[in-house]
């Protein structure tokens, strides 16, 4: 019989002889872990939902001409940076916003094996005419098939048909919020004024709901051609290129590559959505701190109960030591008790947490403006169940360590003679 099986035998007899205390100590861990599981499930559910929402609507890399980009003046280029030349309140020169050679760039990008697709975009600032009112918004001229491939726009139509935009002259797919405000439906016609004053009559062939209010209330889609005509530009006029990659975590590297290659600004999704990513981190931080606090409380419970047990069992410990059990053996007996409490409590906690998560995921929760949300989003990722288990064991190991060490150091002579 090995040393540890004997120690665990004694440990289990100890635990079983105080069923109530054992139960309560384990319950503390169960509570901590189950709350952790339920909370992290909810937070991650929300995170995943938001991530899906944002990522489905945002490109991995967005390439455009950045008007912030300052080019040194001719004099500066010739003379270098000297205090002799200073230009105050410099303004960008009157330059077209278009990407030069956009179609060649598109071809090049689409040939990259890492790229899932690249979609050209031309955004037109417009006013939608609603009676006497003007509603500010944009019309995105896109290659509708490529846009469907990248962002699944066809799946987000709540009315009309995606392909009608290709066959209808001046057809647009209007945002759902916009359609609601203007009380229009598929087949209706609306007037649109561009910032340069051109007025165009457009026919609604579809209504799209992206699930993000700000977009649905202002953006419509048309073909590139319609948008170019709206702005009175030529067929090569494209202001942005949206790229989706096969592996979204390569976005940072690829954006640098394209930026250097083409000389335009290429922004990756992480930079563009920094604030959303921060909110993910914040939510996770909150979840972990609450759970750690709960587990610390549970840990103190275990610490107390073990300490009490050790005082009660002082004589037994002394006699075990007298008959040849070493300090390490005694320590093992109590560590095994702590870890069994932790393991039992944590496993029960995982089960309770799973039930709680399931319950929460069934609570009706209607949300307007966000995609088809009827109940709270819940994540059941096994990773967090593993983390919960490790958490529970670590806390109990930490809580059990000091009392166990104390038990191991008990001087048997003092106890036996102290009678």
């Amino acid at each position, binding site marked *: *019989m*090995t*040393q540890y099986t*004997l120690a665990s035998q*004694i440990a289990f*007899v*100890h635990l*079983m*002889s105080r069923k109530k205390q054992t139960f309560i100590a384990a319950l503390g861990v169960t509570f901590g872990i189950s709350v952790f599981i339920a909370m992290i499930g909810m937070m991650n559910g929300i995170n995943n939902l938001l991530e899906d929402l944002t990522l489905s609507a945002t490109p991995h890399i967005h390439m455009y001409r950045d008007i912030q980009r300052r080019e040194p003046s001719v004099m500066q280029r010739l003379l270098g940076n000297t205090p002799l030349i200073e230009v105050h309140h410099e303004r960008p020169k009157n330059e077209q916003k278009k990407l030069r050679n956009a179609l060649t760039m598109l071809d090049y990008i689409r040939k990259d094996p890492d790229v899932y697709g690249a979609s050209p975009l031309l955004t037109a600032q417009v006013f939608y005419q609603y009676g006497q009112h003007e509603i500010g918004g944009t019309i995105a001229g896109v290659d509708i098939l490529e846009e469907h491939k990248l962002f699944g726009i066809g799946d987000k139509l709540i009315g009309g048909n995606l392909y009608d935009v290709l066959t209808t002259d001046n057809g647009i797919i209007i945002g759902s919020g916009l359609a609601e405000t203007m009380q229009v439906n598929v087949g209706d016609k609306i007037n649109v004024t561009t910032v340069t004053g051109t007025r165009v009559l457009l026919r609604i062939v579809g209504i799209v709901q992206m699930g993000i209010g700000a977009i649905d209330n202002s953006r419509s889609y048309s073909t590139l051609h319609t948008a170019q005509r709206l702005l009175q530009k030529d067929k090569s006029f494209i202001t942005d290129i949206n790229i989706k990659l096969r592996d979204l975590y390569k976005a940072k590297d690829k954006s640098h590559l394209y930026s250097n290659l083409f000389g335009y600004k290429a922004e990756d999704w992480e930079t563009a959505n920094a604030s959303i990513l921060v909110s993910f981190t914040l939510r996770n931080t909150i979840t972990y701190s609450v759970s750690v606090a709960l587990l610390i409380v549970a840990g103190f419970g275990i610490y107390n109960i073990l300490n009490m047990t050790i005082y009660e069992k002082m*004589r*037994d410990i*002394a*006699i*075990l*030591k*007298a*008959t*040849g*059990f*070493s*300090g*390490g*053996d005694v320590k093992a007996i109590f560590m095994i008790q702590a870890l069994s409490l932790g393991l039992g409590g944590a496993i029960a906690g995982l089960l309770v947490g799973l039930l709680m998560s399931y319950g929460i995921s069934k609570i009706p929760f209607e949300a307007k403006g966000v995609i088809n949300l009827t109940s709270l989003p819940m994540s059941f990722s096994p990773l967090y169940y593993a983390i919960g288990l490790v958490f529970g064991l670590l806390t109990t190991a930490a809580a059990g360590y000091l009392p166990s060490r104390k038990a191991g150091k008990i*001087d*048997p*002579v003092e106890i*036996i*003679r102290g*009678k």
Partner: protein
Amino acid sequence: MKEENDIVLRCSSIVKYFTTPVKFKALNNISFTIQRGEFLSLIGKSGSGKSTLLYVLSTMDTDYEGTLEINNTLLTGKTLNQLSDFRNEHIGFVFQFHFLLPEFSCLKNVMLPALKLGKKSEKEVEHDAYEKLRLLGVADQALKTANTLSGGQQQRVAIARALINNPTIIMGDEPTGNLDKTNSDIVFGIFRELTADYGQTIIAVTHDQDFAQRTDRIIELSDGELLTSNR
């Protein structure tokens, strides 16, 4: 009784101080040897240092000067773990109180030191434990927990536990101190039998003159000094 020159315990110049509440010399230059099969009693007034000496000899107290040898092994200066292992194999204890673990059956209590030693399988250990319990006449109590037994029975189970690893020495700290006359006599009888028939060495601290007089040898302490060590 065996008379061959077979020394199982040798202590020389044992000096021990207590530091609380004030520094105090509890044992002063104690040296003697014990032969195999001896039944020895350690007597003295309260505070004479007899129990202190026993715990030094038991290896549980390591805070002393001088040297201690049991079974030709020098124990002074060994680590606590080495001493635990040594106690497990070579020393059996009987205390004034039985000190049986209350959650375990008598049988299991007797088995524990042997399971710790780990030289035999659980089956063999159980068989040995039954044998020891039978030797002490408490085999029928084997599966009861300790607190359902009478004081005399508890002490006999405790002796069985002390015997389970066939130790070199059994050490008793007032082994009959908590027993009535009848049970004291039974326990003494068992000790006598163990030394006479099985060649077991026994050292017992006692304040019971009658008990001491019937042992082979008396060592008397007074104020930490060895008074007599007569045969």
